[in-house]
């Protein structure tokens, strides 16, 4: 299958280093359109198919995308699409597309291009940890390379012209995925979401627009695209995120100091359920794994490695779970298999850590 090379690792958005506990990943996407064609939503399938056959070879040959995988949305089955969605390489909208739309990904997943989603082109740079300026450098370069092989729809006064006027201007959405269990447990997340709204930033759930914050994961991104420079948008969000990191650290500190018993109980229960449950829905698994992650970060949960927790956060999602099982599963069956895999992985990891501790003693 075409996207198989991706599955050998846990995804660019998740491979956070030990130090990146709170910020999971940074992402920038640019919306671009060709000057001489109707936008995908209006042009119809034939026009989209023409554009895809025109862009596919040109984009696949770009130096900054090597080695690349290029694939038409009609060449992917539902499971592949689900996996790409869970790895943040395509949007929900793109997952629903077929003939005439496509995807080009650099194999390390740090750069991906969606063709004929809402706009002709959606370019994305993705990296683990907090590095929006790095993402901007990468995607700015890819953008300029594409610009040299095609004519963009651009207006001197309105900037890059997009299908929806909410994206016109820079066409840029910069977003940072953060794990904020401390602020959620301290019930301080709502005022932060409100405050961010006031300064033109949006907070979304794990999988973007309209999704709830599963697993205490929040995506913070800019709302406005017109009247601000890319560098300023990036700098602004980066600074805000650093502030949120401080708030989260502070909340965790207060939790550990003032609500130690409550915190230990909360994390212990999460561990108890995860190691003993026989049915786990995606949401329950992600929420509990999020608690586990907090427990590991705070040193409350000694027997579990954070790498294992992060691996499970990825694996617990329906697409990855089914891929690992090698077959399509019904929802109830998934819940059973998910619980089994989580149970086994956590007890395995725990017993190994115990053994290591024993030999040290």
């Amino acid at each position: 299958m075409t996207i198989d090379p991706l599955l050998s690792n846990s995804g660019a958005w998740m491979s956070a280093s030990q130090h990146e506990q709170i910020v999971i990943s940074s992402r920038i996407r640019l919306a671009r359109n060709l000057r001489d064609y109707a936008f995908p939503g209006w042009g119809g399938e034939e026009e989209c198919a023409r554009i895809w056959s025109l862009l596919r070879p040109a984009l696949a040959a770009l130096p900054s995308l090597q080695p690349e995988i290029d694939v038409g949305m009609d060449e992917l089955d539902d499971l592949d699409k689900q996996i790409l969605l869970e790895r943040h390489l395509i949007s929900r909208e793109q997952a629903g597309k077929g003939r005439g739309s496509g995807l080009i990904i650099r194999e390390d997943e740090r750069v991906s291009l969606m063709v004929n989603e809402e706009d002709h082109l959606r370019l994305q740079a993705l990296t683990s940890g907090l590095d929006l300026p790095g993402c901007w450098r990468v995607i700015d370069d890819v953008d300029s390379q594409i610009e040299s092989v095609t004519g963009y729809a651009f207006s001197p006064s309105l900037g890059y012209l997009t299908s929806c006027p909410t994206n016109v201007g820079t066409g840029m959405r910069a977003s940072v995925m953060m794990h904020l269990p401390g602020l959620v447990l301290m019930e301080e997340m709502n005022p932060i979401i409100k405050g961010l709204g006031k300064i033109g930033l949006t907070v979304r759930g794990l999988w973007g627009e309209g999704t709830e914050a599963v697993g205490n994961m929040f995506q913070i991104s800019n709302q406005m695209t017109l009247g601000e420079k890319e560098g300023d948008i990036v700098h602004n969000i980066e600074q805000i995120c650093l502030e949120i990191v401080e708030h989260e650290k502070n909340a965790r500190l207060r939790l550990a100091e003032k609500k130690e018993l409550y915190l230990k109980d909360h994390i212990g229960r999460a561990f108890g359920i995860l190691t003993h449950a026989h049915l786990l829905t995606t949401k329950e698994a992600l929420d509990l794994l999020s608690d586990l992650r907090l427990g590991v970060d705070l040193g409350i949960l000694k027997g579990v490695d954070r790498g294992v927790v992060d691996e499970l956060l990825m694996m617990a999602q329906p697409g990855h779970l089914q891929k690992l099982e090698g077959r399509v599963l019904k929802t109830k069956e998934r819940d059973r298999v998910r619980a089994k895999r989580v149970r086994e992985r956590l007890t395995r990891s725990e017993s190994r850590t115990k053994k290591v501790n024993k030999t040290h003693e």
Partner: protein
Amino acid sequence: MLCEICKTEEATVHLTQVIDGSIKKLHLCEQCAQSNGFDLQGPISITDILLGMGGKREETAKPVVERSCPRCHMRRTDFKKTGRFGCAQCYETFAEDLPPLLKAMHRNDRHIGKVPIREADRLNAMNELNQLQADLEQAISNENYETAATLRDQIMVCRQKLSGEG
């Protein structure tokens, strides 16, 4: 239920429309519905109210030829229904509708970010031309004809450069 606009009268007009797959509802009193131009017979677009685009309709609802994009044939009603444009040209076709939309959505109404390289060359030439023309007017009003002549020559060169690039 009270009217969502004046918040004093009882809402008697209930509008429902599906936008991007989600159902939006709007409850208005008769007066507010009418003052926003909704004759209660015709089909009503809730986006008109939400986007503030509909405004007051023509008092006498004469049949008018609807504006549509010469390139992609999107009509104004199509845009209002979907909230998305049909092609790049639509931004010019529906330029009149844009300012209130952009104002509601963005920080400002002018792009100050990245410019495509080819576009940047053209823009530089345009800016240069504008500057030269301003200088020329200044020189003429100062009766500095020698400078004016030089500027005129420079303007000619600049214009040629722009039209040459097409």
